[in-house]
């Protein structure tokens, strides 16, 4: 289980990322496709795993986090995430139920990429498989709360390790597009 969670954190050279205001080219390519060659260079939002930016990224860093390519995230954000994790735990975080130390756990989280298995079960965490995807039904909040507040056994701080909302407010569909119809 642990091995799955130990990514090789590439300590990339700090790259200054310029979110250039690149204007769309006025040259219309000869094609029947209305978008081919269109350039989108203004940074918007970026998400890998659920809740990472909102839980671990300080307000002042939020826009910068969205403008940081994942390969540069670990070096820039792991130390900050570790500080935040300890702050949530009053400085008392030792390891979590996956056996990860504060440095190891935040090392995983800081590179905000969703790991997905292409050969097996895809789930955020189902008790056996860890970070092999994210299904619609996955209770990612409880998983996150347990890993952040639950201590080495997952049993610490029981009032904080589940929000007791265990599923969606509408059943998902059995067939494509799987998500429920809008309210």
């Amino acid at each position, binding site marked *: 289980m642990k091995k799955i969670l130990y990514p090789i954190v590439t300590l990339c050279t700090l790259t200054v990322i310029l979110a250039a205001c690149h204007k769309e080219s006025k040259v219309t390519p000869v094609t029947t496709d209305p978008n081919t060659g269109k350039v*989108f260079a*203004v940074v*918007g939002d970026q998400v890998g795993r659920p*809740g990472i*930016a909102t839980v671990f990224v300080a307000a002042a860093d939020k826009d910068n986090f969205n403008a940081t390519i994942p390969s540069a995230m670990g070096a820039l954000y792991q130390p900050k995430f570790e500080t935040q994790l300890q702050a949530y735990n009053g400085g008392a975080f030792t390891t979590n139920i996956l056996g990860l130390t504060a440095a190891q756990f935040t090392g995983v989280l800081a590179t905000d*990429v969703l790991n997905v298995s292409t050969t097996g079960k895809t789930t955020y965490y189902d008790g056996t498989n860890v970070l092999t*995807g994210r299904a619609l039904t996955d209770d990612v909040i409880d998983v996150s709360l347990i890993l952040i507040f639950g201590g080495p056994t997952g049993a610490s701080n029981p009032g904080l390790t589940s*929000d007791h909302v265990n599923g969606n407010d509408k059943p998902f569909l059995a067939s494509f597009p799987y*998500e429920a119809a809008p*309210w």
Partner: protein
Amino acid sequence: MKKAKQIVAAAVMTLALGGGILWASDHADAPNVKGKSTDITDLYVFQSPTNPDNMVFVGNVQGLLSPASTATAAFDENTLIEFKIDNTGDNVEDLVIQCAYKDGKMYVYGPVKPATTGLSSTIVGNAAVVVPVTAYGASPTVVTSTSGIKAFAGPRDDPFFFDLDQFHAILGGTASGFNNPGKDTFAGTNVMSVVVELPKAMLKSTGKIGVWLRTSQNH
């Protein structure tokens, strides 16, 4: 419980110092995207429940839409919604699935090698699938390409669930823990969603991939 209170007290202090943290999934997470067509709520990637040879990519934007506002919600042709896929383990995208809206339809490109990696995206080639955006209240319109790529775009119930209000109460010091049962703050709210299902073989993977969802604008 005493320890929990100390932890919460510490967390509250951190929040006060940090200027406040709202924990949704990624809903309205950053000043530059809050309330805009670029605001991502969630990314889901999972093996197709109906075909184990397929992978499903779900990208949701524009969260917390009430039913009334969903009726007028729309995709933005100036915003690209893009799944970035790393299949070599270096957290650099090797493939992209690009979703660009134009005149009532969502154009889905790829999976294809990107023109460049990083923060600037260029639409590569011609769309693999063009799917009309499903209107609010209508049955889902689904288009499947000859290559086996299936696509949907339109409003859906937000699949995210969390008692965010109680979490705020905990952080605000007016509660010491969650309630049981909790209350889903996202109940009754919608998102604008793009769903793409495709054969896993197109991902050229050796067993695992890394995926992130990016939005970017053309000006």
